């Protein structure tokens, strides 16, 4: 069994360590967890929960923030 699993992050395939938490994933992308909002398989994951949710193969994760707009 591979020690990495394939997940979709913002529509891109990413291999992440098996059993990684969402927090670890965000940190591995060098993002500030306070500056992103996280959706995991279409469900919002609140910041305090990020280190309690682990990713599984095929999971879809969206990391969003505010950008310029009208």
């Amino acid at each position, binding site marked *: 069994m591979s020690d990495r699993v394939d997940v979709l*992050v*913002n*529509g*891109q395939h990413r291999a992440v360590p098996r059993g990684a938490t969402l927090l670890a994933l965000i940190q591995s*992308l060098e*993002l500030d967890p306070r*500056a*992103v*909002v996280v*959706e995991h398989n*279409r469900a*919002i994951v*609140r910041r305090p929960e990020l280190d309690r949710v682990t990713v599984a193969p095929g999971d879809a994760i*969206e*990391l*969003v*923030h*505010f*950008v*310029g*707009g*009208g």
Partner: protein
Amino acid sequence: MTSVVATGHETPLTIGGRAFHSRLMVGTGKYRDNETMVRAIEASGAEIVTVAVRRVDLDRTKEGGILAHLDPQKYFLLANTAGCYTADDAVRYARLAREAGFNEFIKLEVIGDQETLLPDVQGLLAAAVTLVRDGFQVLAYTNEDLVTALRLADAGCAAVMPLASPIGSGLGLVNPYGVRTIKRRLTVPVVVDAGVGTASDACLTMEQGVDGILMNTALAAARDPTMMAHAMRLAVEAGRAAYLAGRMPRREVAVPSSPREGMLD
């Protein structure tokens, strides 16, 4: 009633239980750079500033988030659901925006047509109902149709935002009658959103009696966005004051301003 002239400002605009002193709201899209945006927003005097929800760029090839440039302590961030074509998408974006933790306000857009970016009123109403039930203060971008505006107000929207003309068009206020009618019939604030191109458009729009204007491209696409922001600030204040002052009646014939009496033989 204390006059606007005496106090220098009038009663605040209250939306969803929050009071705002500026009736000009501005977007943050399409500026040539962030420094220009920050200077223009400052010059506009706006308190409410809109932002969009998008994916973080994992490759960092593009600019990062807007909050690196905009102080959320200084401005009231109004997230939008721009780019959403269904009620479900708009609700999804609104919930993500709220999770950012600033406020419960959402500028709801459900677009129905790519060319005109006119709203899908069915989707808009459905999303408004869901979001109001979910505790949001919904500011709904809509067209100048009275019945849609009434339904949005009935659904519990905190404000209704009819367009002046299509988003980014700069065509100005194409249907003053429609906007005026919406303002007359609704009790919730009416804020005109989209289509204002220059200061006279903003002034004319405010003269209809609406509670405020939200604009983005008119500033971002001006040759000098800061100067235009200044002009818009004055225009919104001028239009508001003119509305409150009550204009003279229109006449088809001249009436002299100087006395007819006392003329020389």
